[in-house]
């Protein structure tokens, strides 16, 4: 992977993609009629939410893989998805109220979608806290994998919440039924931004996996040093 698509090239592609997305958001997409300029928060809020949900799905896959095969690579993959996914989920939790205040007149309400997204954020926090506070690496990986698997239940319910219940949160833009949907130019801006966010997510995941490999190398070399000192 590193030879075909080196990390530096990946970073350049991500930055160019983000610049193109910014152009589409601020100069190409039309201004929304009722909310005005503030509606442009939508273009970072929604792709962040979709990416955070994909991240939790990757945690689920990595966790299942680790419990099944006990391979460190699966654990690193799940841990990386949790760390990077947490950043995206934090973006959702912060940009949501910043959009809600001017649009609804309130920062927050405990409706189904908002509450389930907050629960998702707490699941990311729980996963990362487990990794930090449980000292035994094997035990930490197993406990985190259990959180990763059981916590995934929240993701489909969160995704479907605005379809199943009438909530304060707007109805879905994809498959939301009659009356839902977007101006085609808004669609272009939304999908290009989501693509840029996925590219950024993949770049940060690669960086995390490199970090995890270095951590394992340090542990291996320390053990080697200890055994050579004992000998």
């Amino acid at each position: 992977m590193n030879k075909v698509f080196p990390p530096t090239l990946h970073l350049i592609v991500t930055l160019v993609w983000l610049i193109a997305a910014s152009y589409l958001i601020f100069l190409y997409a039309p201004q929304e009629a009722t909310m005005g300029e503030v509606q442009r928060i939508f273009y970072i809020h929604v792709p962040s939410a979709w990416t955070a949900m994909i991240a939790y799905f990757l945690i689920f896959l990595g966790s299942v893989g680790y419990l099944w095969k006990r391979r460190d690579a699966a654990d690193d993959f799940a841990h990386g998805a949790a760390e990077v996914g947490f950043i995206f989920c934090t973006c959702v939790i912060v940009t949501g109220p910043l959009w809600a205040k001017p649009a609804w007149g309130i920062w927050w309400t405990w409706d189904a979608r908002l509450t389930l997204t907050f629960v998702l954020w707490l699941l990311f926090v729980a996963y990362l806290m487990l990794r930090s506070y449980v000292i035994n690496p094997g035990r930490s990986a197993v406990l985190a994998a259990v959180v990763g698997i059981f916590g995934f239940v929240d993701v489909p319910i969160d995704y479907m919440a605005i379809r199943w219940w009438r909530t304060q949160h707007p109805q879905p833009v994809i498959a939301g039924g009659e009356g839902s949907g977007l101006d085609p130019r808004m669609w272009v801006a939304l999908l290009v931004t989501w693509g840029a966010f996925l590219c950024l997510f993949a770049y940060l995941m690669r960086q995390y996996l490199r970090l995890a490999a270095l951590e394992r190398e340090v542990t291996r070399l320390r053990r080697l040093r200890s055994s050579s000192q004992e000998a």
Partner: protein
Amino acid sequence: MVNGYLAVAYGFVWGIFMLYAWMIHRRQQRLEKEVAELKRTLAQP
């Protein structure tokens, strides 16, 4: 005139990504240095 909420939202998102990328880069640099030091120690007779 840029909307204040919009500016804070975009500022936060770009800020947190740059901060995380910088933090991960710092952690990598520290570990690379440690790996090099450990290898040097182990190479000594």
